[in-house]
């Protein structure tokens, strides 16, 4: 894609929220690499800016990266960040909050504040909302086992028992609502599991560590990985490609490994540990039992893992990236084998320094 065909020019102001995060810092580096020169990043006072500095290190002469330190919960901070921006990449979101109100406040209230600030300046040409696969219910899909952009989103996210899912569903609803009511030109990007150096955890789609034992739940399921650089490139294209307003793009790489293959590679390349495979009917039965117990006991042990969780994470599913390839011209530049190798090296280094 040349700058002549993109939605914004190299000198148009671009805002990235969550720029110090795992994906945000790579997106910033990608924007710099593509020659965008008028970048503004918003980071919280508590953010670790090391990634940000690394991303900005290779910028060309004349590239301006303005750092706005603030909190999206403050309307004043949002106004300062959004002033005059033509394109917003909104990646900031609640991560790791276990309580729904905290996750909601740091995803939905913040997004509302940012959207209001953008509307006040009236210069916005695109609002890229970075969502997540976690919003999909993965039940009643139109294309059977294939999860794509037409798949239904959770209608009762409060029953998933996952604060992040609830907040992300509500954030997406808010963005669509602002598009309908105020004409905000949004594009939604929903990455699968974003991996790469800097992340060390094994995704819960593969399994869960518990009482010193790893319960392998994925089995033969493909895991919807997307390498962080590939994901950043897709987000960038979602911001720059004209004519895709109101569209959702799922981002997963090609050649997805099965959960079983990933686990084998991880053990061979990073560290060995004991794992036990729970066949899908067993994990489904246990999810049902936990749910039933929680109901019977009036929530004594809240059903963190329930049938909705099972459908979303452990049901056998295939993933499509055809829409992003066709509409955005995106293709993963880092192949799966190379991405996994880089990830394993990162994990090994982190284990050594732990």
């Amino acid at each position: 894609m040349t700058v002549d065909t993109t939605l914004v020019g190299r000198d148009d102001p671009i805002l990235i929220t969550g720029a110090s995060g795992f994906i945000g810092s790579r997106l910033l580096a990608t924007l710099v690499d593509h020659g965008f020169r008028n970048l503004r990043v918003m980071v919280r006072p508590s953010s670790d800016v090391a990634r940000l500095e690394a991303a900005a290190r290779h910028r060309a002469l004349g590239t301006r990266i303005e750092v706005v330190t603030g909190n999206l919960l403050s309307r004043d901070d949002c106004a300062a960040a959004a002033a005059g921006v033509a394109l917003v990449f909104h990646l900031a979101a609640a991560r790791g909050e276990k309580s729904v109100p905290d996750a909601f406040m740091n995803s939905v209230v913040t997004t509302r504040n940012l959207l209001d600030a953008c509307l006040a300046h009236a210069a916005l040409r695109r609002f890229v909302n970075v969502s997540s696969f976690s919003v999909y219910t993965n039940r009643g899909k139109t294309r059977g086992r294939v999860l794509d952009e037409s798949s239904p989103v959770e209608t009762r996210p409060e029953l998933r028992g996952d604060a992040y899912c609830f907040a992300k569903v509500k954030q997406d609803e808010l963005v669509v609502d602002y598009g309908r009511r105020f004409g905000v030109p949004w594009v939604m990007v929903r990455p699968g599991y974003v991996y790469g150096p800097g992340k060390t955890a094994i995704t819960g789609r593969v399994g869960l560590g518990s009482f010193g034992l790893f319960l392998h739940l994925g089995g033969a399921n493909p895991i919807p990985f997307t390498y962080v650089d590939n994901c950043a490139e897709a987000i960038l294209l979602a911001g720059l490609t004209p004519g895709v307003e109101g569209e959702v793009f799922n981002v997963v790489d090609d050649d997805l490994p099965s959960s079983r293959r990933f686990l084998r590679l991880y053990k061979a390349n990073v560290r060995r540990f004991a794992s036990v495979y729970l066949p899908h009917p067993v994990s489904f039965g246990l999810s049902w039992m936990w749910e039933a117990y929680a109901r019977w006991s009036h929530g004594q042990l809240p059903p963190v893992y329930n049938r909705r969780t099972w459908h979303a994470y452990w049901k056998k599913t295939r993933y499509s990236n055809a829409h992003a390839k066709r509409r955005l011209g995106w293709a993963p530049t880092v192949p799966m084998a190379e991405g996994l190798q880089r990830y394993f090296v990162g994990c090994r280094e982190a284990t050594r320094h732990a």
Partner: protein
Amino acid sequence: MLEVAIVGCGKIADAHAAQIGRIAGCEIVGVCDREPLMARQLAERFPVRRCYADLAELLDRARPDVVHVTTPPASHFEIARACLEAGCHVYVEKPLALDAGQTRALLALASENGRTLTVGHDDQFSHAARRLRALVRDGALGGPVVHMESVYGYDLAESGYARALLADKTHWVRRLPGGLLQNVISHGIARIAEFLTGDAPAVIVHGFTSPRLRALGETAIVDEVRVILGEDDGPTAYFTFSSTMRPSLHELRLYGPRGGLLLDQDRETVTRLPGTRRTSYLEMFVSPLDVARQQVGNVLTNARTFLGRDFHMKAGMKTLIEAFYRSIVDGAPPPIPYREILLTARIMDVVFDQLRARRPAEVIDDRR
């Protein structure tokens, strides 16, 4: 049917809504938050009749019998006062107010209006805390309390809340008169206030910023506090608040003339501390066995409670709310005596006053 409202729809409001939902004979008729989105998210997840963004509108339209105030502490006084003036009974999350003056005013207003007021010291209503209270009542100490030790640990390193607090120099917790301490120590102080007999204990406070926080460049937050409390004819007490001490304990030790009791809040256990010892080697073998026997008893008690479906994370809150509602419906005494609520606030005032006026501790040198 008691009609209940919740004002403030953050994290702790979830716990209130969940526990109210477990109590028969009440209904949440409204939730209110200045941020309408926050009110709506609570109403979407719990059975709530309607949500509001304005307190006056909630009081006017929903006309609740009871209001739970779950906002940050700086707003407790104004909201609780408005609710009491509107004729509601009020449950305020801890701390009840910012100082003893505000606390006294709210208690007086509640009494004048014939309404009941309580504060969210729900730890005192956990299963273990109630077992401890029953043992004291049954004479396990062999007389009045002689001395108490209340330890309240707080893990600053682990929580996202703490990270945000440390990074944000304008965080609302920093603006409280007692800073971080105001938001967290009332549980530990209230445990002591329950067993103090007088209303004016002497208080000596030593507090400082831990080396760990100082290494992070933080000097304004006091996260280590030691307090000595004493009454001439009554019990004495030590209170310890620490962010660095490990294990991070939440304990109360009560000592009487004939024996003691240890409450471990985190493990929901109560242990008797024998007042006599054997004058033989048997002490080294029989006493540990006795401790083991008591701990097995604690395990069995907890298991029974769990199997009885009453071992929820906020079981103490449910018991406190039930007792509060009972006091409203049946005219029973309020679950936490007003004297205790006020004494807790007064002790906290003295702690904060002494910390504000603190000077470098006098060092004992060789010449003394």
